[in-house]
């Protein structure tokens, strides 16, 4: 039972991290109709900014807090210099241009920070394990990730559901031409949303840094899963991204933690341990395909 609970916590933690990344992606895709492959680069830049700022300030929390406005500014610059010119173009042009951005950021990081990865240590006050049940302990840092991730998800839910900006975001996601016609300053809204997406990506990057490592291309690996999440959740929907991220987090953990044993109940052990990794690796894509058959616009998609 403890084992099950801890594995579920692992899934929640993974899901929340993915949600932070997917939230920005679904906003830019849903509102600006921009396929931004370079979203993973913002995730990476958040982690590198945090690494530098933590080094300067000597404090994890302070460095992390300073890295957020830095990533926001970077997001704004990317929007004004590159992304803005892509909204009117077709998806192919967007994919090409933002892929170019990935290469640019990867090489930029190599030039500035060097090819070897960087390491952010877990802050001392979280560098232990907590007893969540008798006999079941969990790394405190991962627990903190869950708390911060959940708090940010709530904040975002409040922002989208209760504020003027949120209203505009929702309006933009369902019909962006209409809000332009109503006299809303679309350019400013787009810049803000892009910057906001960058902040969440950067936050995900810097929070993942102590459990992973800060390295070139760290966002590229994780971006594919973020795309799967926004497709499952419905493009443009924050709620969808949250639900889908939770589902994907749990499925990923189930595939890795339980599938080999499940297969062993009806297969011989050798072929079960051979088949399990293959199956668990495609599991989220199978779920995505199933959701798309059932609901072509995703779980909470608004557009047809």
């Amino acid at each position, binding site marked *: 039972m403890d*084992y099950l609970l801890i594995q579920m916590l692992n899934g929640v933690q993974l899901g929340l991290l993915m949600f932070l990344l997917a939230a920005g992606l679904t906003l830019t895709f849903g509102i600006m109709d921009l396929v931004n492959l370079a979203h993973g680069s913002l995730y990476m830049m958040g982690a590198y900014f945090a690494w530098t700022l933590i080094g300067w300030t000597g404090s994890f929390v302070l460095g992390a807090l300073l890295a957020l406005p830095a990533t926001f500014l970077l997001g704004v610059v990317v929007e004004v210099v590159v992304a803005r010119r892509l909204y009117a173009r077709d998806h192919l042009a967007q994919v090409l241009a933002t892929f170019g951005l990935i290469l640019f950021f990867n090489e930029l990081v190599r030039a500035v920070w060097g090819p070897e990865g960087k390491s952010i240590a877990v802050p001392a006050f979280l560098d232990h394990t907590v007893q969540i049940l008798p006999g079941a302990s969990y*790394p405190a840092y*991962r627990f903190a990730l869950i708390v911060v991730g959940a708090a940010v998800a709530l904040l975002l839910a409040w922002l989208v559901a209760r504020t003027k900006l949120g209203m505009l975001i929702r309006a933009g996601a369902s019909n962006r031409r209409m809000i332009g016609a109503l006299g809303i300053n679309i350019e400013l809204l787009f810049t803000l949303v892009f910057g906001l997406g960058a902040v969440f990506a950067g936050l995900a990057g810097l929070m993942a840094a102590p*459990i992973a*490592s800060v390295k070139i291309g760290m966002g590229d690996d994780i971006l594919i899963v973020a795309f799967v999440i926004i497709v499952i959740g419905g493009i443009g929907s924050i709620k969808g991204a949250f639900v889908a991220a939770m589902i994907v987090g749990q499925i*990923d953990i189930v595939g*890795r933690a339980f599938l080999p044993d499940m297969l062993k109940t009806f297969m011989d052990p050798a072929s079960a341990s051979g088949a399990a990794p293959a199956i668990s690796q495609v599991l989220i894509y199978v779920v995505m395909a199933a959701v798309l058959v059932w609901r072509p616009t995703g779980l909470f998609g608004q557009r047809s």
Partner: protein
Amino acid sequence: MTGRSFGRAIIAAAAATLALGLQPALAQQSVKIGFISTFSGPQAAIGEDMRRSVELAVEHLGGKMAGKPIQIIYEDDQFKPDVGKQRSEKLVEQDKVNFVAGYIWSNVLLASLKTVADEGDTIMISANAGPSQIAGELCNKNFFSTSWQNDQTPMAMGEYLNQKGVKNLYLVGPNYAAGKDMLAGVKRTYKGKIVGEDYTKWPSQLDFSAELTKIGSVKPDGIFIFYPGAHGVQFVKQWAQAGLNKTVPLYQVFSIDAITLPQQGDLALGTLGAQEWVNDLPNPQNKRYVEDFKKKYHTYPSYYGAQSYDAIMLIASAVEALKGDLSSKDKIRAEMKKANFKSLRGDFKFGNNNFPIENFYIQEAVKDPQGMMTVKTIATAVTAAKDPFADKCPMK
């Protein structure tokens, strides 16, 4: 563009083409070595370490082999088999190199083997990757290794675990060619019980929480891992953060080394690994290499670098023996096979499949007197080990 400047451009282009045509004649003067490694992306630090060692080798040779200048052409495989193959093809066909060396990744090497060794009839030296196929049925007279066959290092680890009396073991590795070879390797020699075996998504999986939770519930006597480069950093960090560093010892191959240790830091202290070369091996050429490397780059070299250094020295031994005459491939192959060079490992000789027959050591992650993380030899796991696929190779 005006008519006149267009005309000039054509003349310039023609001149450039002519100059290109002349290049092979000039190139005869130098010994050309193509070097394939990963110089961009997340694994670029390994390629950088290899490049540094190649440059140090060239420096130690005085920039010349048998009086001819050495020309190294570096190509980036981008960590992708298709790109590696294409770059190898470029080196052989366009640059007409005398030797192609390098190759970190087994899948890149397998994709490039035919292009270089068969179609290109060019001597190929792997400075790292050692897939079982090339040691066995795909062995090739043009292929030489200055590293090992993938199974050998984990096999040495398995032997050591037997000696130490570790009763049961949990295996974790990435789901690709080398990952499967490494886990199969430890299973070949390890006599205790395997209580779990997980393969993780490669290279995209960076979270090991599910695997570590499983390990925590199984409570094995040890974990065996293979996670090269950045992945090794992640696994070791998460293993320590989960508190398992206090309960389950970590045994590794290729996951804790000079490249990853600065990032793993204290978390890696005391972990044991198997390796065919360690920076403290007591032979004069190794002392010189490690000292000069540290002086030049202010960090420890890794086995990737040591194997690359050996690759260049092996080439030099053949070129010197032939007095720089590289016209006969048969003669080059015969000289290469002699392995008449001073390896950083000490004694070095090739088996029938052109893979080295060598010792493997057990190394512990420690802090040096200056507080820098490094590894030191604590035991010899196996001596003069031959890889298990050599018998499948038809070469004698």
